[in-house]
């Protein structure tokens, strides 16, 4: 990889390609103001990534997009005349602790203490363009980029210090944020060197960064840099913000997805003192001096919607199969399935299904919007500040320079906050009221009007020899996505395909995307094949693995779990392994089941994870453990219920989330590979749990469950031997 940051957009990030939530009446005057003359051909200003990707697809027929990202040093790192180091990145902090890990990277290269580095994140007026915080890209791409910028800044500052002293730069070094000469007889502060300078430089292409083996700040368990603000309640999330004269907004929601507005009566709301009602096409919203009044006004509006009949859970998987396209992703077949089947002693064909699940970030979508002389500023919790800026510019027909999006450290996202609906709605209310407006979605709105992890159907046909060698592997994924659809197993004959389909619900990115679905189907199928040839689950996998790193995580998990020890009475155990986004995971699980009720209990989980060189062991441990915990929901019970465009279990009293009492004993094994560059870790650790638990349930009960969630009501159907 050169200096340019490369960005790959995965196919199943559906929400990035869907149309805007609103398209308000075009304001001709606004357009003419922005347009300086000549002939205008108006092209809808759609999302930049979608447009680039679309072009790529049109040109190559393949769904991959690349973008060049500017790498001017001034835009990335700024040392001001007081010696403060500011780092500018378009990335967003949502709990993955990149504010800390990026601070570590910069402090290391600049040779300064952590506390003088300030990271300015996700402000479209201040930070360089960034496509978004997703795909576990910050650590492998942003961190090295900032390291280069910091290293170049250090060399530039050293040259300036050397000039002041009239000595060779090679004799000057930085120690603890001070420049010292060869015998440390003279010293200068950062401020003394930076004072009076006006210098902009571009990062030289050959700038050297600290080798992993010489890391002293990265690679250590630095605490969350602004942790104190969170435990004291001082941190201001978007939903906590207040602006002078700010109003509180509410939006009147349709009765169901696809519903059209038939009639409305807003008189009741307009009669409430202080309330402003805003109508624009299908959009009806209110703004009021306080939250309670806004809620009252929203309820006072009588609306009649008409929604078409739409499929529900019962028809879901048939619909996904029926509406499937020819293959869109996957890849060229390898070898020959026919030959592979001929070589096999046994064949197995099975179908697996995956439910829609919700991200349910604890901070729902929130935005504060204000207009000042035609310029729109929006604070909002999103993973794509620049994407949301485009959405706002498009919705209001204004140039992107007239829009500023700022993202305070946000109350999580997990792939669920890529879109700007709430920002647009707040901005629409603010435009008509002439005052700043805050809009915070309710939990119910978050369930009904955000988007879900795609549901899917996966069919696998395979052949295996009695010695455990898998000879044929045919894999078709309908709708859930192509992430990790390819396997690291060494199968000689493969045909792996992803098929788009028509989703009855709005779907999009979720932590790890379809890697969870594809690992679930693959790793449960592997368990079934091992059962077919009566082999130990670890030995069977090892027989089909050549990849050393995959082998290492699998063996590490098996060892830590005590796989070769005798099973405990009344316990079942299962294992799964895989690879995605540059990192490797193996997960082993132990379950018990209450005989009388059939209630499943996850007793113990071992996850071993390897993502190259570890940047911050404590935060990595936290990420891996958190992914395991979040995975429990999707594995065992999370499941969106819907009918006719309505989410039937869209609130916390109806949607079961993992809680303290669901926690198994969790053992995390981190493999540190200082010889390999660091990959991201926010997503991949989530993929191994569901298959490991499914396999453990089979081990105990001989009941094979091929659908996620495995135990929707907490209960496994009792098998013949239970």
């Amino acid at each position, binding site marked *: 990889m050169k200096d340019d940051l490369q960005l790959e957009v995965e196919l199943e990030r559906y929400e990035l390609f869907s149309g805007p939530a609103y398209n308000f009446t075009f304001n001709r005057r606004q357009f003419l103001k922005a347009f300086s003359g000549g002939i205008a051909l108006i092209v809808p200003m759609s999302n930049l990534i979608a447009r680039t990707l679309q072009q790529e697809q049109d040109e190559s027929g393949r769904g991959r997009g690349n973008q060049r990202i500017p790498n001017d040093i001034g835009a990335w790192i700024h040392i001001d005349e007081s010696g403060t180091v500011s780092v500018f990145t378009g990335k967003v902090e949502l709990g993955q602790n990149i504010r800390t890990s990026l601070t570590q990277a910069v402090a290391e290269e600049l040779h300064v203490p952590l506390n003088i580095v300030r990271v300015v994140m996700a402000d479209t007026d201040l930070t360089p363009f960034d496509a978004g915080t997703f795909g576990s890209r910050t650590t492998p791409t942003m961190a090295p980029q900032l390291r280069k910028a910091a290293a170049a800044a250090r060399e530039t500052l050293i040259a300036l210090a050397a000039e002041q002293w009239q000595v060779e730069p090679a004799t000057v070094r930085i120690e603890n944020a001070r420049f010292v000469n060869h015998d440390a007889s003279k010293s200068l502060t950062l401020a003394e060197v930076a004072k009076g300078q006006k210098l902009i430089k571009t990062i030289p292409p050959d700038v050297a960064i600290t080798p992993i083996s010489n890391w002293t700040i990265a690679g250590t368990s630095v605490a969350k840099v602004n942790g104190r603000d969170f435990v004291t309640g001082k941190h201001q999330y978007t939903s906590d913000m207040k602006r002078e004269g700010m109003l509180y907004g509410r939006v009147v929601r349709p009765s169901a997805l696809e519903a059209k507005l038939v009639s409305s009566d807003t008189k009741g709301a307009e009669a409430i003192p202080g309330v402003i009602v805003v109508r624009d096409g299908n959009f009806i919203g209110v703004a009021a001096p306080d939250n309670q009044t806004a809620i009252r006004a929203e309820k006072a509006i009588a609306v009649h919607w008409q929604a078409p009949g739409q499929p529900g859970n019962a028809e879901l998987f048939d619909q996904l199969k029926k509406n499937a396209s020819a293959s869109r992703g996957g890849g060229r077949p390898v070898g020959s399935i026919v030959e592979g089947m001929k070589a096999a002693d046994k064949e197995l064909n099975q179908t697996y299904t995956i439910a829609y699940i919700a991200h349910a970030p604890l901070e729902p979508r929130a935005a504060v919007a204000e207009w000042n002389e035609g310029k729109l500023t929006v604070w909002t919790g999103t993973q794509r500040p620049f994407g949301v800026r485009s959405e706002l510019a498009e919705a209001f027909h204004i140039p992107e320079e007239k829009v500023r999006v700022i993202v305070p450290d946000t*109350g999580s996202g997990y792939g669920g906050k890529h879109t700007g609906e709430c920002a647009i709605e707040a901005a629409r209310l603010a435009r008509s009221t002439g005052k700043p407006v805050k809009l915070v979605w309710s939990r119910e709105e978050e369930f009904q009007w955000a988007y879900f992890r795609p549901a899917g159907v996966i069919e696998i046909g395979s052949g295996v020899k009695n010695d455990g060698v898998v000879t044929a592997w045919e894999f078709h994924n309908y709708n859930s996505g192509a992430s990790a659809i390819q396997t690291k197993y060494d199968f000689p004959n493969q045909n792996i395909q992803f098929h788009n389909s028509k989703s009855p619900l709005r779907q999009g990115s979720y932590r790890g995307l379809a890697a969870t679905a594809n690992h679930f189907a693959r790793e449960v199928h592997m368990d079934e094949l091992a059962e077919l040839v009566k082999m130990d689950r670890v030995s069977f996998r090892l027989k089909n693995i050549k990849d050393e790193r995959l082998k290492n995580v699998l063996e590490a998990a098996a060892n830590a779990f005590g796989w070769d020890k005798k099973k405990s009475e009344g316990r079942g155990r299962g294992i799964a392994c895989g690879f995605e986004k540059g990192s490797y995971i193996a997960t082993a699980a132990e379950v018990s089941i209450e005989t009388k009720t059939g209630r499943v209990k996850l007793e113990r989980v071992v996850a071993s994870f390897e993502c190259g060189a570890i940047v911050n062991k404590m935060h990595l441990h936290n990420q891996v453990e958190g992914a395991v915990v979040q995975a429990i929901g999707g594995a065992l019970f999370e499941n969106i219920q819907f009918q006719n465009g309505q989410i039937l279990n869209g609130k916390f009293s109806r949607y079961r989330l993992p*809680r303290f009492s669901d926690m198994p004993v969790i053992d995390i094994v981190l493999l540190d590979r200082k010889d390999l560059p660091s990959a991201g870790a926010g997503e991949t650790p989530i993929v191994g749990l569901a298959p490991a638990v499914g396999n453990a349930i089979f081990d105990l009960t001989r009941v094979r469950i091929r659908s996620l969630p495995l135990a929707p009501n907490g209960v496994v159907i009792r098998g013949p031997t239970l």
Partner: protein
Amino acid sequence: MTKVIDLNVNAKKLRVDVDLQTPLLYVLRDHLNLTGTKYGCGEAKCGACSVLVDGVVMRSCVTPVARVSGKQITTIEGMEKDGKMHPLQEAFLKADALQCGYCTSGMIIAAASLLNKNPKPSREEIVKHMDANVCRCGTYPRIVNAIEIAAGTAKEVAKRSTRST
């Protein structure tokens, strides 16, 4: 109906002019600018809105403000005393018991309520008491550890048999 109501929040006597049925959560956040207390679900199922009322945890999103008049309300902002953090706050940092931090205020408040009535809770008692609080980032094991550190039943950050190879 709007009425002036007397509140005692973080040892300060305050007067607010508000509808008596307004949930305490919005009085704290919108009227008193105490935004450390969070909205999560609006139906007392996630604990993000937890506050202490006379030392006992309550869900402010479903508590009408009228019900807590004259009682001692403590929010996360009231846990720090003279610039010194509460032992639970220290312990949460020490155990790295947060990721996005949105649930953290409610977790610390709920834990404080537990330690008020049971200063040395067992692990089972911690799990049982905290089960009504949701951390979507999945830091539950670390939160249990933090509570044990604050209670003095665990001296150190749990190794939880983590190994690096």
